[in-house]
């Protein structure tokens, strides 16, 4: 029997039982819609998180610390260490930083300015290191030669939206140092040269609460010693950051440094999101499985009802194979129709869910997390439909229908013609 004929007969049979066919198909539609919808939302969520993380993390920038971040910092880096790092392949820029944890900044009237940390940097290099984050809001960056200026991060310079310091204002920098067992306090008067734009979080370091002075000033205050607590490294491509990290580790004695590689963190988050999506798919697949059992159930009933018909077909010369394919064709058609409608239902469903989710997740409901970015956009999930998932879901629908249709179809095919003919 020709395939086209088998399909047209199957279609005719399905059309004769409209309600039953519709309900059976509905099961498949729901299953496929769930798979497609969850896949699209999962993919959209992953993309959104990825984009936020890419914006929140400077993926091009590696941060090197002496010793261990968790177990305690080791000896600061020497200028030789810095130039060693400069020699590593795929490194486009290196800039060291001195952190002055004991430094405090006060206005001339004694009022304290809320900078968490004071760092000493080369401003020109830092701008090149973090072009999107290290931006001027006001004033001008100090040149490398200056040694009496200070630059404030956005949040250090403002309080509740109003500026705490002005450009050109003079502030006092106080720092406790220990040299040869002697504790001493150093004071220096510096001029406010610039205020930075709000930069958000780069990796784990938020410069918005920092104040910066030129390297030269810090070196001078520390008695001429050039020791760095942090080295920032810009790689040519985030993809090679891990290799670059390994290469940098090779330049130092084992276990003497820690390197923060944001892209590896990203990869981990990505793999977690992947896992989450697979998990969602697995749940959605269960609904398709249930639909499959529905098909099996309804087809078994259908075969029983049509026993006599099968007997007639066999009597007039239909082979068991023909009977089998006639019933399987019905299951396949349900799969095709259910899959097709399910895909579009899934599309619609995912847009509806994304819309609701976006309404629920407004900016005020988001806490200040690692992922917060300047301006803090609301979290918007747009469903992403990949052809792979769509095709896979469609094929899955048909395969499930065929698998579950196989048992009743075989049952029909194996019917004894004489008994089937006399079935009431």
């Amino acid at each position, binding site marked *: 029997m020709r395939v086209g004929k088998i399909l047209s007969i199957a279609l005719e049979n399905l059309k004769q039982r409209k309600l039953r066919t519709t309900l059976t198909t509905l099961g498949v539609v729901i299953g496929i819609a769930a798979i497609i919808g969850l896949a699209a939302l999962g993919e959209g969520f992953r993309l959104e998180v990825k984009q936020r993380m890419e914006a929140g993390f400077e993926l091009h920038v590696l941060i090197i610390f002496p010793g261990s971040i968790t177990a305690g910092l080791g000896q600061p880096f020497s200028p030789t260490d810095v130039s060693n790092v400069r020699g590593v392949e795929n490194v486009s820029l290196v800039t060291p930083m001195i952190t002055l944890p004991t430094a405090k900044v006060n206005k001339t009237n004694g009022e304290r300015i809320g900078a968490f940390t004071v760092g000493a940097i080369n401003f020109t290099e830092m701008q090149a290191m973090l072009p999107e984050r290290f931006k001027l809001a006001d004033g001008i960056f100090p040149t490398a030669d200056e040694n009496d200026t200070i630059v404030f991060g956005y949040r250090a310079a403002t309080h509740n939206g109003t500026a705490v310091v002005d450009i050109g204002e003079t502030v006092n920098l106080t720092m406790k140092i220990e040299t040869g067992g002697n504790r001493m306090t150093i004071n220096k008067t510096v001029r406010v040269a610039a205020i930075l734009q709000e930069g958000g979080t780069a990796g784990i370091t938020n410069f918005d609460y920092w104040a910066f002075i030129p390297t030269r000033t810090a070196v001078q205050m520390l008695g001429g010693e050039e020791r760095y607590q942090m080295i920032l490294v810009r790689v040519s491509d985030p993809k090679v950051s891990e290799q670059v990290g390994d290469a940098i580790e090779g330049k130092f004695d084992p276990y003497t440094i820690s390197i923060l590689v944001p892209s590896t963190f990203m990869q981990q988050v990505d793999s977690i999101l992947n896992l989450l999506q697979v998990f969602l798919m697995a749940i959605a697949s269960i609904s398709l499985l249930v639909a499959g059992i529905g098909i099996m159930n309804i087809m078994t009933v259908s075969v029983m009802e049509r026993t006599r018909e099968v007997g007639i077909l066999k009597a007039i010369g239909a082979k068991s194979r023909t009977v089998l394919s006639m019933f399987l064709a019905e299951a396949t058609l349900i799969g095709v129709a259910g899959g097709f409608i399910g895909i579009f239902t899934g599309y619609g469903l995912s847009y509806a869910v994304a819309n609701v989710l976006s309404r629920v997740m407004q900016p005020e409901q988001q806490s200040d997390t690692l992922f917060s970015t300047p301006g803090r956009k609301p979290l918007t999930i747009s469903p992403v439909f990949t052809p792979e998932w769509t095709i896979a879901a469609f094929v899955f629908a048909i395969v499930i229908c065929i698998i579950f249709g196989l048992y009743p179809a075989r049952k029909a095919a194996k019917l004894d013609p004489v008994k089937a*003919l006399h079935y009431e």
Partner: protein
Amino acid sequence: MGKVKVPALQGVSFSIDKGEFLAIFGPSGSGKSTLLHLLGGLDRPDMGEILIDGVDIHRLDDGKLAELRLTRIGFVFQFFNLLPRLTALKNVELPLAIAGVSEKETTERAKKMLRFVGLEARATHRPYELSGGEQQRVAIARALINDPKIILADEPTGNLDTKTGWEIVQLMKRLNEEKGQTFIVVTHDPRIAEEASRAIYLRDGLIEEVKENNRGRRA
């Protein structure tokens, strides 16, 4: 105790010539229907053989047997056994569709066959819209569509009134004479036995009597 096996047929042996109109006659439970099912390859015998053109059909596998039914045997049943959801035309087309004949040829041949049995005007009607006689004529048309050599009819008039039954008998006679097809008809109807070239009387699975009837016997 256990199940007691009751043979429906035992030691039935006869041969049928090409173009014969054979009536198998007998009371209920005499084994008529079983014999017909065996002849048509719907059922398999526990013992013995059924030869068609010298080939023991029960040595064929299920697929080949189905092919035999499709191409060389036509069935006509007491209860017509038309597919209820298909139109008269589609019912007649069915064997050709199963055989894989092209759509166009199928329809053409089916229409021609309906015309032959006088039901051209009823082509688009479904079985429930047809009278018993009409349904049986559709069933005969379906049995004939593949141009089989043998037509097996199981009580073809059993579910029809006397007049309609007679018309069906005449139609079968006409086919037998015009097309030379071999008819084997299981019946209760003594008129068929009279019309047949030969009548076999079965009782309790055995041949009781064979009546030659010169009338209608083809040379």
